[in-house]
């Protein structure tokens, strides 16, 4: 009587959609731009997949074609992670400063 993990994942997926829905409504409109940049940064969690792809297979032939795609993906995602979070930080700093 084991339940297929897919069902669980689906539950998680759907509940996350709800959370995303609500979380955004509660964001103050003045922070919509940082919101975009932070969600952008977060979406680069795809790097998880990239790392798996890069390291997939035997550790000897690192540069199989699939791994190369993985490495490329890592670079792209990394640009995004660092860039995204840092830019958000800069933006938020700006908001902070304006406050007395």
């Amino acid at each position, binding site marked *: 009587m084991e339940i297929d993990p897919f069902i669980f994942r689906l539950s998680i997926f759907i509940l996350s959609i709800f959370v995303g829905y609500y979380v955004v409504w*509660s964001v103050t409109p003045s922070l919509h731009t940082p919101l975009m940049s932070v969600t952008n940064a977060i979406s680069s969690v795809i*790097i998880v997949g990239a790392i798996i792809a*890069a390291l997939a297979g035997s550790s000897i032939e690192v540069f199989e074609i699939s791994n190369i795609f993985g490495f490329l993906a890592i670079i792209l995602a990394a640009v995004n992670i660092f860039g995204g979070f840092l830019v958000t930080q800069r933006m938020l700093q700006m*908001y902070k400063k304006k406050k007395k």
Partner: protein
Amino acid sequence: MTANLSALFYLISGILFILALRGLSSPETSRQGNYFGIAGMTIAIIVTFLSVGNFGTGLIYVLIFLIIGGSIGAFIAFRIPMTAMPELVAGFHSLVGLAAVFVAISAFLKPEAFNLGTIGDIKLASLIEMSLGAAIGAITFSGSIIAFLKLRGIMSGSPITFKGQHFINLILGLAIFALIYYLCTTQSDNIFWSIVLISFLLGVLLIIPIGGADMPVVISMLNSYSGWAAAGIGFTLENTALIITGALVGSSGAILSYIMCKGMNRSFFNVILGGWGATDQSSSSQSKEQKPVKNGNADDAAFLMKNASSVIIVPGYGMAVAQAQHALREMVDALKKNGVKVSYAIHPVAGRMPGHMNVLLAEANVPYDEVFELEEINNDFANCDVAYVIGANDVTNPVAKSDPQSPIYGMPVLDVEKSKSVLFVKRSLSPGYAGIDNDLFYRDNTLMLFADAKKMTEEIVKSL
């Protein structure tokens, strides 16, 4: 690292991402939110390393690439001027999209590494998931590139439309689904590549008909796409962090673009379906409103003014028509409570009778020592953060200073454009008494607040 433990950590990182977004519900907690996001990302990366458990040369390469990418990202983040924010975000999106495509390709090329079966015999569900991920990723990539080019000004911001556009998009969309179906039955390489290619094309076609003014909505929508792509890959890789985050980003991006459309009083579907209604619109109003205006809402206005150190109010006939003087007084009271210095600038011919504004401001008990005439206050605009122009128009029109042909040439005007930002509260772009267009509406430091002056002011009071 056991699968359970890493699943637990992925869960934690997903929760940290939720908290990151939650932080943005107020400016005070927003930076803390960002830290949560960073922590979540760090955990996700480390856990992935540990769970792959492959500590050979590969790891070193990964680290190197991570650092290369990171440095580029950091460099861009520090260098980019704040005004280039929207295009930056668009650019970053394209990267996420491309990364998703690459991961999907990688999984397709080497399914064993991901436990998805073997080449030519990939699990059905995984195949669907990965090809969906790749398609959405590709659309995100090419769409973001277009958005980036438009925002950067490399490509014209005006919508590019042609006949049958929507029909072609539809065909391409259906083609993708058909190809996915064939892919599932044939597991053929070529089909997979075609899916990716068609998706790239679709991304371009989807975004080009959208005008520059709607780009923020588009960016947020692309953001949402990138989320769904990540979630798709997450299902493929059976990775909770990806699923949670993908769904989170996907739904929040979609809602955000919806909220933004509502704020700009635009139909969500028109925007997303790529200038669906653009043709209808252009006939009626576009002809006149060639130039783009920045369009804000009460929250934006409240935020700007709350954080200003000085605000000058410029009332005009529209304030009188809307009978907004009481609401205005209330707004000013709220601002003063926030420590903002507020004064009123009265143009000698504002309104429709001499002293029109004075009568109304006195009715609302505005203290006389906050009310200044043009000559007294005109120099102060240069040092003021926000000019709040409420139902005035002609009296701010700089054309009076520059164009001898203009019917109002020679009339002294209030130099509102010299203040850091100008908020214009009026119901539309229509002109004032003199019947001439006001160039200020299209300036960069102008935010138009289209609404009845009283309603808008009341809403601002609420947001303060």
